[in-house]
């Protein structure tokens, strides 16, 4: 779809501000807001409703490309909270419009230097973290895990760019492999040949990257006969499960997030979580696993009207409203760990506050990323939890840095790290 295809949505935005708050029956007096972008910058343009207006203004040629327009579009994590809040009661597509607006900027050659650098890294080294390709597989040294380059495996574990290159987080990926090995799973990794999923580039507006990586990843998994693709990264999960389907390049295998996969291993008795981990834990839903992790629902058709002006779609369209995101499995997995007590934050599941790292914000607007993470850390601290657990290395990294910066005694774990302690 092109930006212009959302013009009807732009004119039908009712300025109701629902995209700024959790639904009325879900919020509390405090921590009611869900949009980090307007939360930080305040002007209406930094909300989904405001971006509808900016888009209408752009397609009507009232505003042109400018650094300010780029800032309005990119100082947003594309976390999707606005999207599910708007669509609870409406049939508009704010998130899709924002993605297309960014793609238009890239197409027109109007980009942010910080993100261009990432894309160069991607072109050069197949990763989004500015690191040399050769370092990619080092995280798995000594694990004795199958290499998909030379062997076939039922299950592929995809570490993703962040986990592959951040030594301090290698424990998460190694832990995932160890758990699977212990459960007797036939698992392999692409190691140094692993590729970026292309999802973060797509969200930054570089949509071609997704096509390319969908194709290249398909070949890797097909060649190794992979039936199930497991990943620890919510962004990779989202790309493989949602975005590849969206662009018609669905992988011919099952995509599962590691929290879901390991939860199933535990449910099937393939691993036993027996050691006490006495912790009061609050869980942060990664946006790309939670509300955005809902499967893509393909639809092609057109608008039609009945009763003169009642807007329907032909064929009927099912909107993605965050209903079927991956919320339950990580919580179930935490609940299986002896000694773990789960306490919820005010904003959770479909309305969880973003960690701050998505949509290119971590790289292009680090101050917004830090502020957003700081809000989440404060919210987590309000639960009086001993620790914060999450299921995405991007979230974990941003939240951990924020807790440190705020001098909060709130360790941040990936759920797999807690599972390992219980084995």
């Amino acid at each position, binding site marked *: 779809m092109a930006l212009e295809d959302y013009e009807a949505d732009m004119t039908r935005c009712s300025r109701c501000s629902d995209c700024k708050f959790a639904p009325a029956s879900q919020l509390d007096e405090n921590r009611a807001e869900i949009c980090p972008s307007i939360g930080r910058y305040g002007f209406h343009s930094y909300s989904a409703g405001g971006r509808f207006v900016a888009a209408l203004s752009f397609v009507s040629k009232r505003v042109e490309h400018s650094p300010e327009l780029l800032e309005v579009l990119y100082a947003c994590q594309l976390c999707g909270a606005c999207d599910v809040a708007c669509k609870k009661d409406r049939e508009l597509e704010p998130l899709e419009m924002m993605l297309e607006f960014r793609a238009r900027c890239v197409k027109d050659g109007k980009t942010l230097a910080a993100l261009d650098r990432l894309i160069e890294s991607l072109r050069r080294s197949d990763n989004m973290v500015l690191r040399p390709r050769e370092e990619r597989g080092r995280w798995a040294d000594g694990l004795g895990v199958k290499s998909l380059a030379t062997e076939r495996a039922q299950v592929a574990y995809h570490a993703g760019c962040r986990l592959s290159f951040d030594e301090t987080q290698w424990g998460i990926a190694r832990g995932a492999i160890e758990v699977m090995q212990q459960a007797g799973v036939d698992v392999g990794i692409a190691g140094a040949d692993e590729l970026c999923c292309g999802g973060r580039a797509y969200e930054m507006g570089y949509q071609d990257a997704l096509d390319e990586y969908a194709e290249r990843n398909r070949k890797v998994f097909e060649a190794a006969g992979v039936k199930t693709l497991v990943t620890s990264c919510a962004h990779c999960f989202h790309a493989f499960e949602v975005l590849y389907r969206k662009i018609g390049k669905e992988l011919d295998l099952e995509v599962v997030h590691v929290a879901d996969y390991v939860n199933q291993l535990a449910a099937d008795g393939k691993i036993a979580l027996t050691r006490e981990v006495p912790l009061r834990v609050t869980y942060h839903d990664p946006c790309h696993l939670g509300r955005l992790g809902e499967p893509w629902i393909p639809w092609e058709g057109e608008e039609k009207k009945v*009763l003169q002006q009642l807007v329907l779609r032909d064929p009927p369209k099912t909107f993605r*409203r965050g209903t079927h995101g991956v919320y339950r499995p990580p919580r179930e997995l935490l609940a299986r760990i002896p000694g773990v007590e789960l306490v919820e934050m005010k904003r959770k599941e479909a309305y969880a506050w973003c960690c701050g790292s998505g949509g290119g914000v971590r790289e292009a607007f680090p101050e917004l990323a830090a502020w957003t993470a700081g809000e989440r850390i404060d919210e987590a601290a309000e639960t009086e939890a001993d620790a914060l657990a999450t299921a995405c290395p991007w979230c974990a990294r941003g939240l951990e840095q924020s807790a440190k910066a705020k001098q909060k005694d709130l360790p941040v774990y990936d759920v797999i790290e807690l599972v390992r302690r219980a084995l």
Partner: protein
Amino acid sequence: MSGHPATNETGALSRDTYRALEDVVGPEFISDHPVILDGYSFYFLSELITALGAGGEKKFIPRPAAVVLPGSVDEVQQIVRVCNRRGLAFHAFSTGIVCEGGPGRIQIDLRRLGRVIEIDEKNKIAVIEPYVTNARLFHATIKKGLRAHVHAAGANASPLASATSVGGEGPDNPSCGYSSRNVLGVEWVLPTGEILRLGALGSGAGWFCGDGPGPSLRGLMRGVFGAFGGLGVFTKVAVKLYPWHGPAVFKGSGLPPTYGGELPESLRACFAAFPTSDQMYDAVSAIWEEGIAHTFNRMPRSFLCYTSSDSNQEAWELWQSGLLERDFTNGIALLLAGHSKGELDYKERVLHDVLARTGGKRAETLEADPRYALTLLRTSILSDGVFRGVSRPSGGILEGYYLNESVDVSRLSHDASYAHTKTFTDRGICIDNGETNWGTFSDIAYLSEQIPHFDPRDEKSVQGMLELLATSYQKQFETRSGAGLFANIGAIMNDAFGPMLSNVHVWKKRIKKALDPRTACDPTGYSYPEA
């Protein structure tokens, strides 16, 4: 005046005026960039705002010269003073459902003033700032067994804006009164920059009474409809609180788009329908007299259809099933509230008696399905989900016929107003919803509205709605059936319809002149000053 022009010929701010405002709010909280300003120039029916005198082009009303986000009343006051000194007009809004823009004007966005300042449980008062929403106030007060009136503009609309400046009706009118009745005091930055505190607050006696000891200017401040930001900026308001019969925490279960839950034991949802609209109006009068309604909706079946469904497709299927036409034509929906089962039983018996007298029938099929009760609860108590009924169907609504009159005046215009609207649905201008009068009552009058749905995307639909509005008002005056909503809103409408409304326009011009001698506060939504 500073001696320098505040804006240039294109309406852009001069650099030193920009700096003067920047000095007040800081560089982060001011912008004059078109991308930011256009965020304050769009309204889904901007053509109406344009027609009301703001000017503008298709879909956009004119950009303001700058937007500022003050963080305190002191900053608001300083902004207003800069505007006065430099001959600039300003206009403020809270959550910003409607914006008016305006070339050369300063848009004051009150987003940063969002504190619930106090819930005074003993005296049943809440003191809030402009950006507090209906939903936030509701959740803050129910913890203490209290609730405030919730106006029907949505869960994320501002109770302060409603209490001080704009209309303020809602289904809970019967138990809470409408917004005008709930103001206990305000902190008001006048168009000149002075701060006025009304009611008991004005004599330092706290927020407990809007009429003193101290100045009582509630009528002047907002009257029936409010000044739409045309008389300055309200930075705090105290509103009355009422008993809340439900639990201290009100949370729907499950995941979007539809949250589950249960009706609190202290509330009962009742739906009833009548063979004729006349019988329905008899029942409205009787229910009003009996004082049993906690919330009351004379509910068009289309509204129930849209709000109780998760999508337009689902609504269309429900509509086609004929269930609502069969069981909920000339329908009313109310919540009864009670502190005990006995109280609830009593109220329900009274309702039965009213229905028996008026020929009404409980809509048992609807009452047997919890989704209708939950929909009624959320929309009536919390204004939650009203946009399913307002904007999801086609994008927009506009009040055509609007009466705040006796039940009998509404009764008399019921068929005529529908027939008039029908001439527009027949032309494809708006959705053919069948009967469309929504209504509720408060201590002052019965409110009845025709709320046709139109498509802001469709030029024919938009222009048709403007025609519907104008002709509806004309018809209302001709048939002596009250004044349309917008007859009282906006400087142009004020001049056009004032002579038919006890010369209210003359008074508004005087008030405007007295409170705003330099016309610093944008008059578009209210009135131009007396010449």
